């Protein structure tokens, strides 16, 4: 699908919409519980000094995610 990329590829300050979570089991459940359900608007707020993890604004809270997890969340800009 066009325009689909992992959350970790979104630049600082940009918005995107969650389309799917590319994993199953516990990790999927945890990511969904953080509010990363399809359709959710997320904003990459900043990156840590070394570039990873990234801080993402999800439903009002800023949550830091490592590349391992933010690579699993596919978003559309």
């Amino acid at each position, binding site marked *: 699908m066009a325009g689909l990329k992992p959350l970790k590829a979104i630049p600082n300050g940009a918005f995107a919409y969650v389309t799917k979570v590319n994993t199953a089991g*516990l990790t999927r*459940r*945890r990511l969904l*519980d*953080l*509010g990363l359900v399809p359709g959710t608007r997320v904003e990459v707020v900043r990156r840590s000094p070394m570039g990873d993890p990234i801080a993402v604004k*999800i439903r*009002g809270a800023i949550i830091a995610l490592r590349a391992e997890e933010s690579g699993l969340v596919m978003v559309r800009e």
Partner: protein
Amino acid sequence: MGSTRKEPVIALAGNPNTGKSTLFNALTGLRQHTGNWPGKTVLQTKGSYIYKGRKYTLVDLPGTYSLLANSLEEQVARDFICFGGPDATIVVVDATCLERNLNLALQITEITAKVVVCVNLIDEARRKKLKIDREKLSCLLGVPVVTTAARGGEGLPQLLNLVDQVVKGEIRPQPRLVQYDPEVETAVAKLVPQVKAVLGDLVNARWLSLRLLEGDLTLIEAVEKLTGKNKHVPCGWC
């Protein structure tokens, strides 16, 4: 689960960073002690406060975003609300971040109706020029709502009064439940009668059916432990 005990037990639930512990400290002062949840390495803090001459026990549940049992903390919090038989549950939500916090509140009102929602950090919200329509929120959730600023003590008397009324049954909240997709609702409708037949009023049948449908076996384990030994609420909690 009636309040046969002399001291009503109140559960305090909420997301992390909502000022839940500040509220706990403000209500209980130095009358608190910590230990472990039975069999779990999760910190349990209990305290007490006196309201209108009656002593209340306040149990501070681990701060979680959800009760869908993906972690030990969530299981502990869920099991206490569900099986610990609290006479009321206070759900602390962050006024500046309602959306995320209501997720937990909605999950709790599915388990129990005896809920008071405490919209905390209202001072922060005011500072951010954010207005919260308390009455409308109460109406949409179907449970009493109070706004507080625990750090300054604002709203605490109203909170205690509402909790007292819920405990005594003077207020009987009627939570407005989340409506799921038709497929889910159909499946739930099929399961509810069977759950009721097996477990009676032990657990909210709709909520248990939902957990069964998504295959949450940790909850069934908890139910098994409860019914396996005896039909009473375990006293290890209180």
